[in-house]
């Protein structure tokens, strides 16, 4: 029997599906979600304001802390913005090293996402498998930069560490490892019947909606938009790769409809693309300097005499990161505006979350690879004022139950 009563359902602000706190309020009709509202701000750390009190070099390391996973992308966009204002030329070798580290970050971020997505639908074997193979790229990053995340690799005008012959060998070994595993991994992710049953036709964002809501990254490309900063705008060494193109589900012969499967397909194909880009950069790595030669003090002294505005755009694993800086003869920027991909994609959640089942909420929320954190409680509030609190385990159990049902149907 159809019920006309809708209930508000709160998830968050703290929830295991997210990496940062965010609160969702759903309107539900039985098992169906009919509306969604998002509440941000539980982890606002006022980084833009703090940056107004730091000097130009300190800000690089402050911005690494905007996001743990995109810890290369934010300082990258900032350095590009400052180089844009000051007209600093980055040596070719530094541009290539930036590209390599950026793609290593994309590789580990996408592997992390596939693990998270598998966990959300209850496929924990796949979660452990992808996180296990992700260790290899993290080890490589650690050898290259000294850290698994927060690499401190960038500086204004170049990079801080060179890639030595020994590092190059590690990168080659790592690439061989992933090339060997890629066909098996992509087969599990793209062809597994249960996974397809849980992701196809779920959480749809049409191309028209994606464009209107300014979605970015794999979320936009999964809907069929050819939107990729690496291809739209000259950044680092990407413009020297004539074969580079935005990935879309069309590359596996599927017309995109913008569901969770399409977004997953884009990320899986981007793992392969990242391997290809790193290979290209290693083969064509130019000799020469790795930065503009100015030390930190000299750089600050140059920048504090400048006035102007600069924009830095970079394609992070989750989508476009864009920084706008305003300089005005001071030892720090007068203003710095930071945009993370979830700021753009968060708005696209509303259409995706409408007309899905409660059991699909975790995977649809995770499907944009949100940069917002975690909770362990959700509350059903009934319209008569009484409320029932159920735990995240129960919501997760609901998702696993649906996964098992789908698996049974697929095995028949």
């Amino acid at each position, binding site marked *: 029997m159809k019920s006309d009563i809708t209930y508000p359902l709160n998830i968050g602000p703290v929830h295991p599906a997210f990496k940062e706190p965010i609160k969702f309020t759903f309107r539900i009709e039985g098992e169906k979600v009919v509306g969604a509202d998002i509440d*941000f*701000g539980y982890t*606002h750390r*006022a980084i*833009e*304001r703090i940056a*107004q009190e730091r000097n130009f070099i300190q800000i690089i390391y402050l911005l690494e802390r905007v996001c743990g996973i995109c810890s290369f992308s934010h300082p990258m966009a900032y350095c590009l913005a400052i180089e*844009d204002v000051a*007209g600093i030329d980055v040596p070719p070798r530094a541009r290539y090293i930036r590209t390599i580290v950026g793609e290593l970050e994309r590789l580990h971020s996408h592997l992390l996402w596939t693990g998270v997505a598998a966990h959300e639908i209850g496929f924990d074997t796949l979660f452990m498998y992808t996180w296990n193979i992700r260790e290899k790229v993290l080890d490589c990053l650690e050898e290259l930069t000294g850290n698994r995340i927060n690499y401190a690799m960038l500086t204004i005008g170049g990079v801080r560490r060179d890639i030595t012959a020994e590092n190059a060998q590690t990168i080659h070994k790592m690439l061989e490892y992933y090339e060997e595993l890629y066909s098996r991994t992509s087969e599990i992710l793209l062809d597994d019947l249960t996974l397809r049953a849980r992701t196809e036709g779920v959480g749809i964002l049409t191309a028209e909606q994606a*464009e*209107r*809501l*300014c*979605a*970015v990254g794999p979320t936009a490309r999964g809907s069929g938009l*050819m*939107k990729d900063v690496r*291809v*739209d*705008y*000259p950044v680092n060494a990407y*413009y*020297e790769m004539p074969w580079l*193109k935005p990935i879309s589900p069309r590359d596996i012969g599927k017309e995109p409809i913008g569901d969770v499967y399409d977004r997953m397909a884009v990320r899986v194909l981007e793992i392969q693309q990242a391997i290809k880009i790193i290979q290209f950069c290693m083969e064509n790595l130019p000799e020469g300097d790795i930065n503009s030669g100015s030390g930190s003090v000299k750089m600050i002294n140059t920048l504090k005499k400048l006035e102007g*505005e600069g*924009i830095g*755009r970079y394609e992070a694993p989750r989508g*476009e990161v*864009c*920084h*706008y800086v*305003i300089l*005005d003869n*001071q030892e720090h920027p*007068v*203003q710095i*505006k*930071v*945009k993370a991909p979830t*700021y*753009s994609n*968060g*708005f696209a959640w509303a259409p995706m979350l409408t007309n899905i089942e409660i059991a699909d909420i975790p995977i649809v929320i995770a499907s944009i690879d949100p940069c917002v954190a975690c909770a362990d409680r959700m509350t059903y509030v009934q319209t008569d004022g009484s409320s029932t609190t159920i735990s995240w385990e129960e919501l997760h159990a609901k998702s696993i139950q649906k996964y098992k049902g789908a698996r049974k149907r697929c095995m028949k």
Partner: protein
Amino acid sequence: MKTEPIVTVLQNKLGSHIQASREKITNYDNGINRITLWISIDRESFHSAIAILKTMGRLHISTPMPYKEYEDRIELIYPFALKENDTKFSEIMVIILVDIPKDDLKIRTITDIVPGALFMERETMEMVGVEIEDIPDPRRLFTGNYLPDGVYPLRNQKK
């Protein structure tokens, strides 16, 4: 994508409402350019200008709205990325600058043209204290309701 046609079209349609424009071009190898175009427009016409830009290609809002504070006015900065077609490296940045006096901090919403700008406008309302007229969702975005009225965390007195 070239900048002259954009400026010409805007000047033809809006005349003296376009107060100034400047561009910055950085050249790369293979004839690839990175182009940024700044256009100053008065408050009455900036909405029509953005509607015209929207007809020229894919209009994407790139960052939340920065601003510059002067003694008697605030300059709002709308950073757009504009792309005409799928040609590679053809996206240009079109930055719309709008001055509003400090004693009348109001501006019209652009969410009717670019719905994706809603978060940006909500953030500007709470952080800078500019009232966005006709905004579909006037709630705060980041700060809680505990913040007293008239306190705008990102406002400063520096230029």
